[in-house]
């Protein structure tokens, strides 16, 4: 049954771009309305396919930023990679009303719902925060009390995607805790860091959780994920509760 459902959902379908919102100098959110009902869980991604007039097709995976609870649109926060082929299309050519082919949801491992419970430690580097934001938004939409801490590293204050939304959610002090670190400038706020993540930061954030985490999710560039995952293991977090997603490079 589950496989059948998945098989249906993983078919290519058309989706309209119904909104475009610049988030940071390099990241823009694109809001899609799929033609068919689209059920997903926080942390999953979609495949996007672009087709050129000569028949050439390019395909990429993008994590979903929206929470499944809130609306029927899918938000993808796409970082512009200067040597990219698909991300440059979105940033330079895509417009509201355009029809894009996508399929999904994809991925059944890097997934968290409030039913899984907490405490949960989320660690994101750069645009690796996107699937984690979906989890944080889902938690808020569900009114869950599960303790969740997001450690989020970016180069600068202005490159923190969804920064004000995350700071606002943390201010509610209802079990969602936020720790920011900037790698290329000093943090304008107290209680945040201004360096690349390291074992000391990981130990600090683990100590801020009420209990050892039930699950840890790490997403970002390969070196970032390796640093975070190795530090978690050194701090005594069992490898089998650590789920990772790497950009690859």
């Amino acid at each position, binding site marked *: 049954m589950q*496989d059948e459902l*998945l*098989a*249906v959902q*993983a*078919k290519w379908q*058309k989706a309209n771009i119904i909104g475009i919102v610049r988030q940071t100098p390099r990241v823009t959110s694109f809001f899609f309305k799929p033609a068919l009902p689209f059920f997903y869980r926080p942390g999953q991604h979609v*495949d996007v*396919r*672009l*087709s*050129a*007039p*000569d028949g*050439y*097709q*390019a*395909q*990429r*995976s993008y994590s979903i930023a929206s929470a499944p609870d809130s609306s029927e649109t899918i938000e993808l926060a796409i970082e512009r990679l200067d040597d990219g*082929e698909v991300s440059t*299309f979105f940033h330079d*050519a*895509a*417009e509201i009303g*355009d*029809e*894009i*082919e996508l*399929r999904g949801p*994809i*991925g*059944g*491992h*890097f997934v968290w719902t409030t039913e899984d419970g907490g405490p949960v430690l989320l660690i994101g580097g750069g645009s690796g925060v996107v699937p984690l934001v979906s989890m944080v938004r889902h938690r808020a939409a569900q009114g869950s009390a599960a303790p969740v801490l997001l450690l989020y590293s970016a180069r600068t204050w202005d490159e923190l995607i969804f920064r004000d939304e995350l700071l606002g959610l943390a201010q509610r002090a209802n079990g969602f805790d936020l720790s920011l670190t900037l790698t290329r400038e000093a943090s304008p706020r107290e209680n945040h860091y201004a360096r690349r993540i390291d074992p000391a930061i990981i130990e600090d954030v683990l100590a801020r959780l009420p209990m050892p985490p039930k699950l840890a999710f790490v997403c970002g560039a*390969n070196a970032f994920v*390796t640093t975070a*995952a*190795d530090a*978690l*293991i050194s701090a005594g977090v069992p*490898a*089998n509760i*650590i*789920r*990772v997603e*790497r*950009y*690859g*490079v």
Partner: protein
Amino acid sequence: MMTRGFTGRGQPSEIKDRIPPGQSLTDDFPVLSAGPTPRVRTEDWSFTLKIGPKPAFTWNWDEFNALPQTKLTRDIHCVTAWSKLDTHWQGVLVDDILAEANLEAPTDFVLAHGYDGYTTNVPVKDLVGGKAMIATSYDGKPLPPDHGGPARLLVPHLYFWKSAKWINGLQFTTRDEPGFWELRGYHIYGDPWREQRYTGD
């Protein structure tokens, strides 16, 4: 369907027929995994052939490296849509492992196991006949941990999630038992030329 405003870079025509549909060429070697990279020391490493639940043959690192060595140069294709051409590997062909164990494949299917608990299923016919190896070297150097070292399965004609990293055994199974990603929506076989990415493709 054509995408308005998209032309794409296309692919150089001389290699077009080596890149399966939906794939793009990369010169990097992206790293992907579901969990942390296990650090397996070669002195602790072993490799076991199992028939069902029963271990049939086990090698330690030195014994395994004493088996006949083969070099393969192959194109590889990841389900995340990158392909890399002419990758250079060295290791032990599955044929030579079976010969050393004096074993005819007792079933039609294999489940590959990794040190991280990862599993993936591959039919026996895709592992024998020089098609697959346990690779211990990449590009002339010991296989780095991020890429599956000390040893990984290499089944280059299938999507690369089938080439299990940090391998510690092959288990013969009577049925085609779905592995880690196959249980999570990925295709049971994974032929890149038929674009078998997900269940139902």
